[in-house]
């Protein structure tokens, strides 16, 4: 029978299936960070249990780590305790951890692929909703809760029910200035934040094939923002090239065997999808969110939408509330919106390609006087190192950006990096919820190049005209 990519990944990991479809699913890779794991480890201790396969687990602190000088440790006590607890748990249970002072430390969704710890055909989980990122490699990857973190640690399995299959096909050849981020924002604008609820989404079509693995990661990262726990892209030559030679990647005979298997990881012709959505990438322009949900998105050439033109009363109210929170007036051109801060980073857009795209805009320009802070936060220590080898740090610093240490940073403001009430931010992260980047903070989601362009112009501009 013809199978989808999701069907194949699912079937290859079924340990046991009940009549009602409840399935015991085997987990190949478990990523762990400091926020959602402490109670899981404590649960193991209380029940006198051990991790099933320590080698499947890879940990790194990312949410709470400072992005400034780390030589003094973490000053916020609660943050420090969470990070210390992770260190202690990893030491006690024999789990590999890239600690705060390790060059390989970083956001778990950046370091998994970077190390080759995320491989095609794997099931990948983490106590973090943006685990969908890893689906870019033709893996089945999704976020789990703390009880489930403990369950995977103890049993290497999860109790799950299968989702439905959705295909989002993006046709055409990607025009200049459009990135994976713009594509995924446009998709969410189209299907809404609940559009993917109950589905595993496969992204396909020529535009997706043209994306680099970095671009595919930005895309799959935000599948969760479209309501789907998992997003994925079929394996192709680019996937295999990306993985090759990475520390955790197979070698020798294993490599050949692995590649043979990976080449089967695509949807068969004629396989059944429960839902299909088709877009043409030629219709996608650089995206900017204007509201407090990722679906509240328009193109940079547009205006802030007008709630009075919305027929649906519930939607209209939601729009009005969002406009009020965002301090925006309907019909204002997006190009007149002026951010106070600019954040380039997060598991959506902090990889080398993202930094290169931002640096290309920043090069030879200066951050506008009206911008209080423009910061670049690489996704990992290794991304930072590579960027420095390419001289990107100099470009940013010369332009007036701050060049920081790796971590989640202002994506969710659990460390010291945050917006003050009322401050407006051009951000490459994935959530523009109320208070996400700091209480009362106002977030506009954009691609890295668009964020850099907003920094040097003091307002949102169409990067295609720069």
């Amino acid at each position, binding site marked *: 029978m013809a199978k989808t990519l999701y069907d194949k990944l699912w079937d290859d990991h079924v340990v046991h299936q009940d009549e009602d479809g409840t399935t015991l699913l085997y987990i190949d890779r478990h990523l762990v960070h400091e926020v959602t794991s402490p109670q899981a480890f404590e649960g193991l201790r209380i029940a006198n249990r051990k991790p099933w396969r320590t080698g499947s687990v890879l940990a790194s602190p990312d949410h709470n780590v400072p992005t400034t000088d780390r030589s003094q440790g973490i000053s916020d006590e609660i943050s420090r305790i969470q990070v210390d607890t992770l260190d202690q748990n990893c030491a006690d249970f024999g789990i590999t951890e890239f600690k705060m002072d390790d060059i390989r430390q970083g956001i778990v969704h950046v370091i998994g692929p970077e190390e080759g710890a995320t491989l095609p055909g794997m099931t990948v989980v983490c106590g973090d909703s943006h685990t969908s990122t890893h689906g870019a490699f033709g893996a089945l990857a999704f976020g789990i809760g703390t009880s489930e973190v403990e*369950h995977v640690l103890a*049993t*290497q399995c999860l109790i799950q029910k299968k989702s439905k299959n959705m295909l989002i096909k993006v046709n055409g050849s990607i025009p200049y200035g459009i990135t994976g981020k713009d594509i995924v924002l446009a998709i969410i604008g189209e299907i809404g934040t609940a559009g993917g609820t109950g589905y595993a989404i496969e992204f396909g079509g020529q535009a997706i094939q043209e994306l680099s693995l970095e671009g595919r990661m930005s895309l799959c990262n935000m599948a969760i923002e479209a309501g789907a726990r998992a997003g994925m892209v079929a394996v192709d030559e680019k996937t295999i090239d990306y993985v090759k030679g990475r520390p955790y990647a197979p070698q020798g005979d294993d490599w050949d065997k692995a590649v043979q298997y990976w080449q089967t990881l695509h949807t068969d012709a004629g396989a059944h999808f429960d839902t299909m959505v088709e877009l043409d990438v030629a219709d996608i322009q650089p995206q900017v969110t204007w509201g407090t949900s990722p679906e509240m998105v328009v193109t940079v050439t547009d205006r802030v939408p007008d709630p009075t033109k919305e027929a649906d009363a519930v939607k209209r109210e939601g729009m009005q509330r969002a406009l009020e929170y965002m301090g925006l007036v309907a019909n204002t051109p997006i190009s007149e919106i002026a951010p106070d801060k600019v954040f380039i980073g997060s598991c959506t857009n902090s990889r080398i390609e993202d930094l290169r795209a931002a640096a290309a805009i920043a090069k030879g320009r200066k951050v506008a006087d009206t911008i209080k802070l423009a910061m670049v936060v690489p996704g990992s220590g290794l991304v930072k190192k590579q960027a420095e080898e390419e001289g990107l740090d100099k470009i940013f610093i010369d332009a007036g950006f701050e060049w920081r240490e790796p971590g989640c940073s202002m994506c969710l403001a659990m460390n010291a990096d945050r917006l003050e009430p009322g401050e407006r931010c051009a951000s490459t992260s994935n959530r523009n919820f109320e208070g996400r980047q700091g209480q009362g903070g106002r977030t506009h989601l954009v691609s890295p190049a668009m964020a850099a362009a907003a920094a040097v112009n003091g307002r949102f501009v169409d990067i295609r005209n720069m």
Partner: protein
Amino acid sequence: MEKFNKITGIVVPLDRANVDTDAIIPKQFLKSIKRSGFGPNLFDEWRYLDHGEPGMDNSQRPVNPDFVLNKPVYQGGSILLARKNFGCGSSREHAPWALEDYGFRVIIAPSYADIFFNNSFKNGLLPIVLPEAVVDQLFNEVEAQQGYQLTIDLQQQSITKPDGSAIEFDVDAFRKHCLLNGLDDIGLTLQKTDQIRAYESKRKNEAPWLFDSGE
């Protein structure tokens, strides 16, 4: 998870409807890295007269003498008698953690919020649903008689009163099985250890590289 069979304990009457999880354990305690130790902060805002924060020495805090948990007659209680829609609000698993850590093993109420109800079973707490009239009657009896105790027999699905009369209750057969045998989700999955091992050896053959790293 501790096995649940038959317990006899003091009944603590919490005479309020719609007790939400933020009342059960306020949000400032979610910053904790632990799942134990929430007992002293159970019902924190009702129990103490000052504002509670993590890390405070709770034994030094001024207690609210009017709150039921602080009354001498209810010390050591293990059965919580409550009103309808108990455990509504946020899905925090910290709510059953706090109740359990305090020492409660059973809750009796006319109804519960869904997520709280599920979370309770996962954490060894038995939430019993009884008709509103029966719960009313229990409230009357508890308040009339000092040191009122009930015996809960899960196997028999019966509650025995001090006068020897019994009330029957319903419980989902699968959940009953888990509680009686002290099986949490993990315990249940571990019953399939052989199947997991069999899957692993098959998989090791097909995809050996998945088992190489660090092992």
